[in-house]
């Protein structure tokens, strides 16, 4: 068996119906959501019987210089499909996104790591502090402007 990659349009259709003002845009295999709606969308993806994304594979952050992107890779064991949800964060300073810690405990270390290395703060995370580097470290080393 192989996992089915849910298409961007399908995701957009489902998510857009359920969570108002959440969809940003979509491509063939990914859906961009508005950063402020991440927690709502994540809650829907996890609770919805048809989507049933119980498993968060990974959260990645990418520095595109002009903006940052968060990428959520999700899998449903029961339904046998996977999806990629993305969010665009504009600017470089005081970045934040809602935490999905309370939906997926697996987000715990990954969100802390993104804060530590990329400088994106997750609101709602109960323990938002550096994880790899020590407290008091200056800057966020995975950013493209950190040399």
């Amino acid at each position: 068996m192989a996992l089915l990659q849910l298409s961007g349009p399908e995701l957009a259709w489902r998510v857009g119906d359920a969570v108002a003002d959440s969809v940003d845009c979509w491509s063939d295999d990914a859906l961009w959501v508005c950063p402020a709606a991440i927690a709502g969308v994540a809650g829907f993806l996890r609770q919805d019987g048809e989507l049933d994304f119980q498993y968060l594979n990974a959260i990645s952050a990418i520095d595109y210089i002009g903006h940052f992107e968060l990428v959520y890779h999700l899998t449903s064991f029961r339904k046998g499909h996977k999806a990629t949800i993305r969010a665009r964060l504009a600017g470089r300073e005081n970045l934040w996104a809602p935490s999905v810690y309370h939906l997926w405990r697996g987000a715990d270390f990954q969100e802390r790591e993104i804060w530590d290395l990329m400088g994106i703060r997750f609101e709602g995370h109960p323990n938002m502090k550096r994880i790899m580097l020590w407290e008091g470290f200056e800057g966020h080393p995975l950013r493209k402007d950190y040399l």
Partner: protein
Amino acid sequence: MINGPNIRTEPMTVNIGPQHPSTHGVFRLRVTFDGEEILQVEPIFGYLHRGTEKLAEERNYTQVVTLTDRLDYVSSMINNQAYCLAVEKLLGVEAPMRGKYLRTLAAELQRIAAHLMGIGFILQDLGTLGTPLMYCFRSRERILDLFEMLCGARITVSYMRPGGVFFDAPPDFWPALEQFLRDFDEEYKELGQLILENEIVMVRTRGVSYLPLEAAINGSVSGPVLRASGLGWDWRKVEPYDAYDLVEFDVPVPPYNPAGGDNYDRFWVRVQEIRQSVRIIRQCAAQIEPGPVRAAVPLVLRPEPGAEAYGRVEASKGELAFYLVSDGGISPYRCKIRSPSLLNLTVTEHLLVGWKLADMIVTLGSVDINMGEVDR
């Protein structure tokens, strides 16, 4: 009564690690004990953080292979494989059949070696003073010798390349492999007798530190730890890569227990997976045919700008994935490593709170983390 109101007790906070014989690297746990019982636990790491993701942005695609060796340094072959698969996905190339078989074979040998380490160290944590560990190392040494024949290195192998493997196996590799598999059957049986039905191992690991399936899934746990909780999810089966769709193997899952998988289940899953790996290796060795081992890829790889790939494998510790983003340059624009050891640590608190100090050490061993991978 001893526990009268006049006897004052207070919880005691102890740092287990970063220098401790049983934390399997520079891992630190800040634990609050009530007597021997754990009240609170906080995992602290980062002591081995080398910034692999940042380093990968400054090397070309082929050079990054050497960085992956140093992630989970007891299963470098599988790390190589995960990275190469991600790059191949990015480029849209595919390895030739012989290369695929060689990669599968090397990865499964490495899985045996890594699981042997895992099993050996659980028993070391149980207090066996190294005898079972040395039994495990005896077989592992043989595997490392095979790796030396394949690529000249034993630990940091860098054997695989985007598009296949670097070298074909030398002719005397195959008889050596055959000999190893023959000897290993005997050694495996001996090891199984020594450990699987040992009364003290049973008493110490059965019913200790349950991990329910819900908690495991919610905590992004993967690999043997997830399977021990009762879900036979193996990426080799679900999304077959390399030659895994051409070989037969089973995914060992312990009998389902609503309470979850205990330390014995995690331990048992690894022991059984070794046998499946041997099956895969035998099939690979039988099915492999002469041919090129590496696809025709340019020396300096330049994927399309904006291309992205999430290449994942079932590593010895769980789901290992490289998420690569290209900007059209010669090195990855972003190389995110989804490390199974780090995410398996998410459930530390769930596993440890309420158990005793001695159980804590064994449970950590049964989760089988590798600090090279946790800290990257």
